[in-house]
């Protein structure tokens, strides 16, 4: 079973568009492996960008939230805000980097 931070449905939209640009004449079935690999890669890349910038104290804080099974999204919004992480911007930047790498720098 696979595990994603964001999910295949959401990231698949971007990867599908990129694949259509890069491989316009190939059938979707032949590109299924590329699709899955790149969805996974993008999910990992975004996860690393979000959590890789946290310091030890912040990592301990979020781990404590996981320990007490904090499921309230507001609590995590406050956490990221206090940590100075603009999730939207981070994710957009990673999508941009990913797209440029995938398309070989041709992306607009």
């Amino acid at each position: 079973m696979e595990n994603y931070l964001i999910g295949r449905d959401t990231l698949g939209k971007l990867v599908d568009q990129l694949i259509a640009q890069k491989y316009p004449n190939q059938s979707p079935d032949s590109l299924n492996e590329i699709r899955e690999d790149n969805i996974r890669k993008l999910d990992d890349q975004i996860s690393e960008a979000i959590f890789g910038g946290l310091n030890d104290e912040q990592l301990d804080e979020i781990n404590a939230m996981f320990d007490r099974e904090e499921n309230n999204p507001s609590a995590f919004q406050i956490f990221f805000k206090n940590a100075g992480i603009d999730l939207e911007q981070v994710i957009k930047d990673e999508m941009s980097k990913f797209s440029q790498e995938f398309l070989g720098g041709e992306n607009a």
Partner: protein
Amino acid sequence: MHNSEIFSGGSGEAGANKGEATKKYEERGEKVLSAAERKALLKEKEELLARRAEIDAELAALDSDEQKEPESSEPEPSGQPEGTTDPEGASDPEGATDPEGTSDPEGGATDPEGTPEPEGGTSTPQGGENNATPEGQHRAKIEYVKKRAKKNSGVRDVVIGAATIALAGFLGVAIGTNGFNVAQNNNQAPQGSLNPTAIVQTAQPERAPSPDGTTSPDGAILPDGTIIPGSTTANEQDASATENEEKEKGIKDGYGERGMWLSQNKEHDYDYGDAKEVGEVCDHDEVEMLKYTADNQVESLADYMAEFPEELCPEGFYGLNPREIEKKLESLTPDEYKKVKAQAMHALDEAYTRATVTQRDYHHYGMLLGDEKGAVVHENMQLVDRGIGPGVEVVEFYWVDKDGKEIGSMLVNIRRTSANEKGEVDEHEGGLEVLRVGTTDQGPETPPTPPTPPTPPTPETPEPKKPEEEIEHAGPRVDQQGLDEEKTPATKLEDDQAGFEGIEQQERKDEAEAAEAARIAAEQAEKQRKAEEEAAARRAAEQAEAEEAARKADEAARKATEEASKQQSEAAEAERAADDEAAKREAAQRAADEAAQRGAKEADENANASASERANIDY
């Protein structure tokens, strides 16, 4: 269990013990659990202990996985569907049923404040040479958090929400899909201010007729005005280099040909384009609107690039005016063009926005029909320079450096059409133009204007009131000398008198318009101030609500913890009481048995004694 025997009053001693035990708890105000309740608690305790053992096993498995492949995403047995909440937490191997991790009433090794680690202590997976150094430990922590985040619905909801918004914006611009809604631009930045300038009274210029010799972009719009996404067409055209070159030029020279800036009302004399349609595609996010127009029309891209700060302007374009930029862009190969456009998009992404009101005259580029009665096609479109006065609501896009210091800005007049009281929409009011102060910067390419004076010309006619800074407007100019040489003195006198009267009327009109413009500017400034105050109040209220929600969540968690502890204590107490009772029952039973034995023995002895006596008597 012997509850029924004891509490129904078996032997006398057992019955007395029951009353004391019950009284003790009742005096303390504690609930005396029934047998069924105690059974249920004990069963729950066993289940929690078993669950804890499972969690410990899974954590141990995770630790060993991390030692083998610290950066791989191992399949986890959570089975949690994407984007869904796991209310029971049943699939959460981190111990969903144990809010505090204190599943051991006897106070086992689990640290209630920390993670359910076998070793307790910090929330970091143990083991491995990678964690020996501080950097290794930090890295291990990050990996651990990344794994756990995938299983937490709260953090996933937040990240997925942000990703959805980011993706909408990214796909809407990068791919150029028509009709894709993008999110609002919520950029917050240090506040800056426009340099205040004198309010200048300026009459709106007359519409300039078609100039000669201006550069007309190539291409044409669809006859029905259908908007074609530029990027989609660009993708199709990449197949053939020869075809693509020409077609790319057509797309790049897209001013008017895609109907981008033209409203649906094709019958009007001049259509500068309607930001309303662009706004609908871009969900009225102003940065996205600029990116959308830049993505589809090279003239739009050039318009914005001419205002970029040097730090963000693509190399080789800084300091050029929009015309020069447009020509340079059109000279690039498709690949080069895409790279420059990508850099420009990044620059637009870096912009912050704020609403403001013009305090002076500006001019801007716009499209005009050459033959106003002709077809609305690309060949009939002319680029012109137009003026705009003070008191107009516009959007300022500005850039800051890493220290928050403003390094550049541009004003963009974004005019969306809106319905009047009758619900009618005047679509020709729309527009999306970058404003520039002062004279046109088109230089020799400025379209010449024919001599069509707005007022009767005279040689002594004083110039209308102007500020210290000279402002030129695109519009008709008058060659005064040429006209005067053709007139007789008498006619000139009549003309002079008529001219003076006209001048006085004009002056009175100018004064009234200046006063009106000042009033409008003051109203707009007041509106802006109020809007900013309301926004600040809303933000403060939202912040307070979020903090209150967090505080309540913490309070609820604390109460749940306390309740669980209390219940466990009660269960332990009940168990101890049950044990006491059992011991007492056993003691009572033993006493009873001993008494019975003694009674039996005595009876035997008595019987034996009686038998002996009888034997003796008989004998």
